[in-house]
């Protein structure tokens, strides 16, 4: 991908994430009444396809956004760049997407 496409991907996912993060924080306040546990949250969200779609979009956006930000930090603060760094960051994106989508599947 070109630098311009990566730049656009990071900005677009930031725009998507901004409202989603606010709703996510609101959901935590609503859903958690007795400690932050997966069981507690899933008991109130399981089977709700709207929440599954919401968190599916959330996870995919975060999986694109975070590695791109990390790429800039590695480049500017540690001087790390090149294809090897990009490959590691693609794996990091896949890890974020995998862990997040696993949690989304539990909602369905």
């Amino acid at each position: 991908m070109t630098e311009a496409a990566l730049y656009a991907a990071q900005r677009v996912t930031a725009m998507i994430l901004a409202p989603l993060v606010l709703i996510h924080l609101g959901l935590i306040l609503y859903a958690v009444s007795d400690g932050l546990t997966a069981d507690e949250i899933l008991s109130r969200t399981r089977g709700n396809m709207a929440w599954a779609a919401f968190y599916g979009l959330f996870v995919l956006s975060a999986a694109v956004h975070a590695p791109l930000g990390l790429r800039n930090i590695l480049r500017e603060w540690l001087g790390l760049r090149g294809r090897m760094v990009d490959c590691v960051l693609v794996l990091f994106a896949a890890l974020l997407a995998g862990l997040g989508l696993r949690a989304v599947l539990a909602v369905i």
Partner: protein
Amino acid sequence: METGTAPQPDSTEPDRTKPDVPLGDYLTVRVSRGKGPENRYEEFQVPRRENQTVLDIVTWIQRNADPALSYRFACRVGVCGSCAMTVNGKPRWTCRTHVSKVIGKERSLTIEPLRNLPRIKDLAADMSAFFEKWQQAGGRFAGKTDRTGPLARIDPESPGRKAVDAGIECINCAVCYSACDVVTWDEDYLGPAALNRAWTLVNDERHAEKRETMKKVSAAGGCHSCHSHGSCVEHCPIGLNPTAGIAGLKRRSVLQTFRLSGEK
């Protein structure tokens, strides 16, 4: 976008109708000395005058205290862009920076070479990388015709020409390059001046290689590396706004990448 203006003198510029008289006191000036990476500070006591620029101070030291002091200047009137140095921690054009504006309450002056460029000796920085990046950014004008062709008719009120006018008065002093933190962090970053130059070219109807210029500024280290800190705007002695030009390059680059722009 701000409109480019003619060089503005310091607001504290003294009344030129009065004779430039010595004030009878002295100023303690710390000057960064050394070759290449070495750095030490030497202090000089320089006579204060009522109408005195930082370049006057450096010139006094070189002519009266230490002839071996190296620095760079040419026009002394804010046109050539060769006398920029770091003055009390900020990059400035020294020929049009009055001492009274920068000495503060401590009445002290510390003069160093420009940041983000390697030192040659004392206050003279090696500008090679700065100018090479102008070329890397596609900053060379390519005409669509030769000198025998008809003159291009450009509407001065067209958006493109207005964008060019806003950025074209750059004097290549490298003050913005020195002020930019992204240049410090990323050695590949082209810097505000080179990108500002590219922005004026891609808005110039007469430039034949807009696509090549856009390709160069959209590569790694190009316009997308800018964090929009605005240090270049803050320090540009001419009052240009490279951040706005870089934002324009980002916008155009993204639109062209996704083929949302009809521009060529």
